[in-house]
């Protein structure tokens, strides 16, 4: 048994850290050198001296955080070395540019899954199975009650929700980066053919996706002084941060919905305050996490993000997988 200081990757000050390479993974505070799995702001922090990511992630980060950030980029699958450790990015299927990161040192393989999903998503590269000895996985939806429906079923439900209330403006709340573009892509394949508006923060990300070659429908940037009649029967994509407070007063006769994996639970749906919830997620569901653990052939698993107590116990009992606990 190794002590936790002897693992290639471990927790230091609440963040994942590889001491041999002196490099941090998605650190929550400024450090010298940081590997970034994807461009969501809970995985990126300002002020690091140097960032390393995929090309797409770098572009999305710069679009959101400004140009004068130093980011070194690599292609998926391209190996690079830091202090003798081989490192490479692999698609994780979460959002455009998102990646798993593999480390190889002294014939020992480590894989950080990053945020991932297995479901098909036309707006980013499909999750790639990567073999490893040690797996550090996310566990956002680590209970068997979470099972995602096919994406096109959810898209059709959304389409029906809009078209059933032609006199209303349908406000759909979703994360600006990733979820919004995926929804946009899927909804444009449904029967709903009305106008789609998006909030500035989403509009900006849409453009970025398009520049990176993702084929998504054009939307109209929402202006606060839009005529109410124009919006009747349309879909408006908004970030969740605007769901509470005075912003909604800009609209009349609305119905609201939230697109998130948590919406599969009735109590959470009711408590959320939205009229409706669509259970669609960019994270893996229970079966997805189990599949990745199995196919990665990892013998040792460590969970990072989310409540992993139940999943850990299940894996130990049912699959005889060794669960590591690094502490924080």
């Amino acid at each position, binding site marked *: 048994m190794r002590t936790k200081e002897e693992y290639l990757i471990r927790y230091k000050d609440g963040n994942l850290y590889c001491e041999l390479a002196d490099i941090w993974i998605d650190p929550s505070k400024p450090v010298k050198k940081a590997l970034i799995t994807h461009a969501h702001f809970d995985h990126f922090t300002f002020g690091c001296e140097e960032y390393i990511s995929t090309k797409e992630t770098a572009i999305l980060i710069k679009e959101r955080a400004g140009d004068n950030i130093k980011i070194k980029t690599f292609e998926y699958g391209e190996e690079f070395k830091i202090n003798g450790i081989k490192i490479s990015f692999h698609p994780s299927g979460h959002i455009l540019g998102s990646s798993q990161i593999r480390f190889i040192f002294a014939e020992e393989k480590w894989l950080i899954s990053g945020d991932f999903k297995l479901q098909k998503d036309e707006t980013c590269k499909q999750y790639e199975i990567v073999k490893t000895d040690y797996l550090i996985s996310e566990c956002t939806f680590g209970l*068997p*009650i979470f*099972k995602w429906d096919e994406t096109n079923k959810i898209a059709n439900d959304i389409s029906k929700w809009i078209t059933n209330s032609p006199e209303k403006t349908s406000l759909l709340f979703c994360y600006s980066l990733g979820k919004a573009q995926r929804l946009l892509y899927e909804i444009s394949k449904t029967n709903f053919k009305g106008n789609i508006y998006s909030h500035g923060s989403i509009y900006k990300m849409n453009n970025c996706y398009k520049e990176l070659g993702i084929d998504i429908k054009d939307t109209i940037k929402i202006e606060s002084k839009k005529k109410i009649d124009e919006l009747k029967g349309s879909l408006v994509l908004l970030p969740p941060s605007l769901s509470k407070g005075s912003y909604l007063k800009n609209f009349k006769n609305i119905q609201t919905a939230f697109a998130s994996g948590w919406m599969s639970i*009735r109590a959470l749906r009711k408590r959320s305050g939205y009229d409706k919830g669509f259970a669609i997620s960019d994270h893996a569901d229970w079966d997805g996490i189990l599949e990745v653990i199995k196919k990665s052939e990892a013998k040792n698993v460590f969970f990072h993000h989310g409540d992993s107590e139940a999943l850990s116990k299940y894996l130990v009992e049912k699959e005889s997988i060794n669960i590591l606990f690094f502490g924080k």
Partner: protein
Amino acid sequence: MSLNKFSELFCDLDSMNSTNNKIEVLKSYFLSNEPIDNSWAIYLLTGKSNKRFISGRYLKNLFAQIYKYPQWLIDTCYLKVGDSAEVITLLLKNKTTSRHKELSNISLNELLSKTIPELSKLNEKEKNFKIKNMWETLPEDNHLIFNKILTGTFRVGVSIGLITKSISKLINIDEEIISHRLMGNFEPSIDSYKFLVNKNINLQELNSKPFPFLLANTIEDKIFKHSINDFQFEWKYDGIRMQLIKRSGNVSLWTRGQELVNESFPELVEKMSHIKDDFVLDGELLVWNFKEQIACDFSLLQKRINRKSPTRSIQIKYPIIFIAYDLLEINGRDIREIKLENRRIELEKYFSKCQNKTENNISDIFKICDLIFPKDWPDALTYKEKSRENNTEGLIIKKKTSIYSSGRKKGIWWKYKVDPMQLDAVLIYAKGGSGRRAGLYTDYSFALWKDQELIKFASAYSGLTNIEIKELDKWIRKNTIEKFGPVRSLKPEMVFEISFEKIQISKRHKSGIAVRFPRITKWRKDKKINDADSLDNAYELMKKIS
């Protein structure tokens, strides 16, 4: 029509906040479905019955057994979801691979009048097999409804009022009439639905049914601007609100919860049936101390409530009384539209004689509610403060000119409750909530000091705002000492003001006291745990009151 339609209706109602939308959805459901299915839908949606065919625990065990899930994993899921029927529904997703969904066209009527009643008669093995079979042959969208009906947890945000409104709009008949038709027992049948939507109003048909109850609102400051002479004052008794009906010789006792309780109180039915007149009285049923002419504690009434056909000795041990507040109908004449002060005159005219006359004496079980006559509002306040002395909860204030309409109508009747008793206590345990509060720690236990020790004295669930609940939930997760299943013991740090209605000695509790209706009235962030009250304070409070 099929169960699918009802599942859709449930889903629609569940995801709508606007009352108007809900009414529209209900209307179109009633229009497009068979009367028999409509009557079942009303039966389920109004919660007329929540009969439990099997327990949530049973359902979870069965699922674990069939699909080889560890029990603890299902329990963990339950903590997040808060409803057994929903947990099983979520876990069943993609599990039932059978492509033959033979039951995809089963009707609501067939499910409720045949399948489920038959299922509940089977022995355990057959029952398990049948439930598994239902899971496999019902379309996935219907699992939730099926599981909820089985476990008797069918609740959705639809009130009787909403059903009343939709039916009223559907056939263009006054809500009052529909509401009256919906009172009391509702046995699902083609006839009961047809009766509900009958466009001809036949008062005879409503004979055995109570009128919709008129309810009081919490007092508002603006009332004090009015002259005290505009109002009638009564004590607010803590019993069972009831309509006592005698029509065509038959007596029926209906509670506000629309239950017929004749069997629990046969002595009242017997006595009242000797009165010559027909009538509908609104009043309160209590266990009464006849020697001191004062209401007994609600706990004594509880000994009678759920006991059908009570023995003679029970009847003597817990003697009941009906206190009449109001007369709504006399000898077939509906007088709800006349003013309260005039109804009171009628009430006294017909019933004071029954209290005195020897040949028809009912004074050992019946009493007209005494009125109180405060001189002015400060005097009314003094009466209110005294209400604990005669075991009442405060005052009921009624506008003398009010007619007897239905529901919690604003601006005519008020309740003026005595200020609650309060103690500052320390939060020591928290438990996960269920239903809407699943996944949050919302059930709390509070303690008082005894020497250097904190002794649990009450549990409370209500009183915090949603924002406070979330904040406290976060704190609870960070300050857990130990977990026992769903319960966490907590670092004693947080002080809350707990209000309650009654305090009494209890041998069943470690603290030696029991309180009624405890609730959180303030998060005392300004207080340290040493500032919290002690059990001695609680005993003092008890002494002061008795």
